[in-house]
């Protein structure tokens, strides 16, 4: 018996030794490898089908548009080495560089861009492209894309305002002067597509960016390696980019700690809230916190009593303490929001939010009580009826509880909290089947318009029932001119109507992006909206 025991113990020891040796050798990194978590499988790596952060993160390494964003967030030459803009701002002519090549060695031509954009806009694409509207700036783009119930439908693709004049010259005609069009041209919907490329697997996948797709193990990992045909390959230091798909934030955190990941947190991962709080308190050097261009707010159902009354909406908005919410509830470095357009968005010369202050209202409990009484009187009510505040899973419950508490304490209002499953929640919100609902919006491009045109009467994302002809006119005015000062003035006036005069939604905070980055990861760029440019990263151990 003793002998057996001894044997067992020694066997265990030997095995543990072998295992730990294996484990150690496996977790060491080879030089110039960058590993981050995507959390989920990208739904599609087809330029025309992609529409989410995960797909975008992978695509941004694989492709390059006519222009790209440099480390400072400025437009830099991409496949196009230079471009001309007509005086009215409606015609762009891009001159493509000669040495831009696909991962299979073929040159990238103007025809590849024309093909890609028209493919995305094609109403008969299989399946139709969900993000096609990103190309509606192009002349006839919308009328070509929308075929049913559209009297202005253009069935002839040659009428669409994108044309290859020759292999290296691309001419783009726009519907309106669009000062941020180069931003759109850098966006993934505007990447070129090679005609015979396949998108479902690594095999047959052709791209033109700094990296090419080495492997795609569905649901498990994606690996990128440098594209030796990339024109700026000397700037690319990484030899291997590895994306993992780990769903559990705690697992992601452990993997970061043990060196299986070099990056954790946004844009495509997350840091467990409890850990984030701890990291912030100990002032961890690997943690970086940055404001990003997204706003967290509550929708009021502007069509439902008593929320159709501006005074009631204002009262609710003035009766909460936003600083307390970001300091004591969300605790991730967010900033209180008193406007709708978030921080980090370009204005005329600098940032919009410093040129147009978000001082549309002040938190004031006494004033809120007055407004509420007045508003209810106008509505013919004596007391605020009990209403529901709906939200989806995630961190939203604690925020809702805090706000409901503030309303209860400051205004004596009873709120019913309603947690709804994601798609049910969206469905209810989009069909105006709610009283007050949690919402969030992130910038698609770096211009206040990405927020402002949300609430025009006809916007598909207007899920608050807000209709204001003056507002619509201001948005139209901003659309019609290329003069940035005039545009910003019009959009600031629109924001004044939306928040200052009507409080159509209740701003709560501007988002922040948190990530853990190993100290040896250099030259990464997190842009204004929280996207990560990993293409120029170098590992310096």
């Amino acid at each position, binding site marked *: 018996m003793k002998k057996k025991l001894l044997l067992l113990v020694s066997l265990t020891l030997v095995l*543990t030794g072998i*295992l*730990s040796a*294996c*484990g150690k050798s*496996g*977790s060491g990194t080879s030089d110039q490898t960058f590993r981050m978590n995507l959390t*989920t*499988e990208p*739904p*599609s*790596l*087809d330029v025309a*089908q992609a*529409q989410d952060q995960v797909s975008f993160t992978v695509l941004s390494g694989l492709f390059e548009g006519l222009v790209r964003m440099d480390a400072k967030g400025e437009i830099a030459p991409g496949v196009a080495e230079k471009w001309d803009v007509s005086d009215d701002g409606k015609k762009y002519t891009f001159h493509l560089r000669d040495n831009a090549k696909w991962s299979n060695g073929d040159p990238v031509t103007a025809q590849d861009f024309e093909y890609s954009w028209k493919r995305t806009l094609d109403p008969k694409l*299989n*399946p*139709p*492209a*969900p*993000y*096609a*509207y990103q190309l509606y700036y192009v002349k006839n783009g919308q009328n070509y*894309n*929308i*075929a*049913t*119930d*559209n009297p202005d439908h253009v069935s002839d693709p040659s009428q669409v305002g994108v044309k290859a004049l020759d292999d290296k010259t691309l001419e783009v005609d726009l519907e309106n002067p669009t000062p941020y069009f180069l931003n759109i041209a850098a966006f993934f919907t505007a990447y070129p597509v090679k005609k015979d490329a396949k*998108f*479902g697997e690594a095999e047959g996948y052709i791209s033109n960016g700094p990296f090419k797709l080495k492997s795609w*193990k*569905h*649901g*498990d990992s994606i690996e990128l390696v440098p594209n030796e045909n990339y024109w700026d390959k000397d700037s690319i230091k990484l030899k291997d980019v590895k994306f*993992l*798909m*780990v*769903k*559990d934030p*705690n*697992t992601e955190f*452990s*993997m970061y*700690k*043990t060196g*299986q990941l070099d990056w954790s947190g946004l844009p495509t991962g997350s840091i467990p809230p409890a850990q984030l709080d701890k990291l912030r308190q100990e002032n961890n050097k690997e943690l970086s916190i940055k404001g990003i261009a997204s706003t967290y707010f509550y929708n009021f159902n502007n069509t439902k009593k008593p929320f159709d009354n501006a005074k009631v909406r204002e009262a609710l908005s003035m009766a909460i303490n936003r600083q307390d919410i970001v300091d004591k509830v969300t605790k991730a470095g967010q900033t209180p929001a008193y406007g709708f357009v978030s921080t980090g968005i370009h204005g005329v010369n600098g940032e919009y939010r410093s040129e147009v202050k978000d001082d549309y209202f002040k938190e004031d409990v006494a004033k809120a009580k007055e407004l509420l009484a007045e508003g209810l009187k106008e509505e013919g009510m004596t007391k605020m009826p009990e209403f529901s505040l709906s939200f989806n899973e995630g961190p939203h419950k604690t925020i809702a509880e805090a706000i409901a508490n503030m309303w209860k304490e400051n205004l004596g209002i009873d709120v019913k909290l309603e947690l709804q*499953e*994601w*798609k*049910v929640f*969206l*469905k*209810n919100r*989009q069909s105006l089947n709610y009283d007050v609902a949690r919402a*969030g*919006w992130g910038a*698609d491009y770096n211009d206040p318009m990405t927020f402002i045109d949300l609430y025009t009467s006809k916007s*598909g*994302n207007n899920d608050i029932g807000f209709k204001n002809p003056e507002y619509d006119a201001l948005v139209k005015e901003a659309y019609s001119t290329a003069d940035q000062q005039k545009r910003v003035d019009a959009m600031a006036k629109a924001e004044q109507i939306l928040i200052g005069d009507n409080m159509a939604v209740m701003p709560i905070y501007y988002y922040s992006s948190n990530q853990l980055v190993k100290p040896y990861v250099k030259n990464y760029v997190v842009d204004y909206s929280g996207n990560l440019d990993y293409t120029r990263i170098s590992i310096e151990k």
Partner: protein
Amino acid sequence: MVRYLGGKLINIVFSLLILATATFFLMKAVPGDPFTQEKAIPPEIKANIMAHYGLDKPIGEQYLIYMKKLVQFDLGLSMKSQDRTVTSIISQSFGTSAKIGAFAIVISVIIGVYLGMMAALRHRKLVDNTAMFLAVIGISVPNFVIGSMIQYFLSVKLQIFHVAGLESPIDYVLPTIALSTLPIAFIARLTRSTMLEVLTSDYIRTAKAKGLTPRAILWQHGLRNGILPVVTYLGPMTANIITGSVVVEQIFGLPGLGAYFVDSVMNRDYTLIMGITIFYAVILMAARFITDVLYIFVDPRIKLSGGVVKS
């Protein structure tokens, strides 16, 4: 016997049909669709996409179209991962789940039966008490607790294993342990209780009286009878384990079927929901069918004649 098994097969096909129908209509009754999202797609584009997938047709017609394809074994394309067929998603992720599941089953049966027999042989002694104490822990502590614990101690603290992923064979160890604790405990208890019963029965006494060696008594006469409930349990357990555990897959970041099942429902990925539900049902029914067949061989008392089942 052919009639007996044939009857069971017809039963399976019929059950599958009912299951597919019920799932189809329940799934459509849930609010939302695959293309609802925070940043709404313009209604015209969405209408275009819905038409592409035939989701604009009346629900009865959608059902008939789906069933017609199903009969031809065509599960269609996923609506979330547009470039992939449901069949390829299932076959790839099932591969991972089945591999880890198979390890877990083999280990559970070997360790579980061994522990159970030892406990029965040393009834009310230290070995028995220890084994049964461990079994109680194994049954009552959920696998996500065990998974997180071994991950924390063995991977984060001691750094013996990787935290997650399946890069090398060694990475299979932790998920296998997490998956097998419950079945080990369950099998150990099952084996122990039946063995206790078996060991006091008449034919064991007869065998002893015949002068057979204790080893022969235990393995030939004891175990064969003692293992019957384990075989019964093995059917549904196999189906359960090889189709993937959502929680264990999540903790160890494994690309298994369980995660896809939950995601498909969250995403309202209709074709994938149907595909995985039907696949899961097929596995479960196949496992039970095989159990029935195995029974005929293991249990000599089950005799089938003239289509009448006597058990």
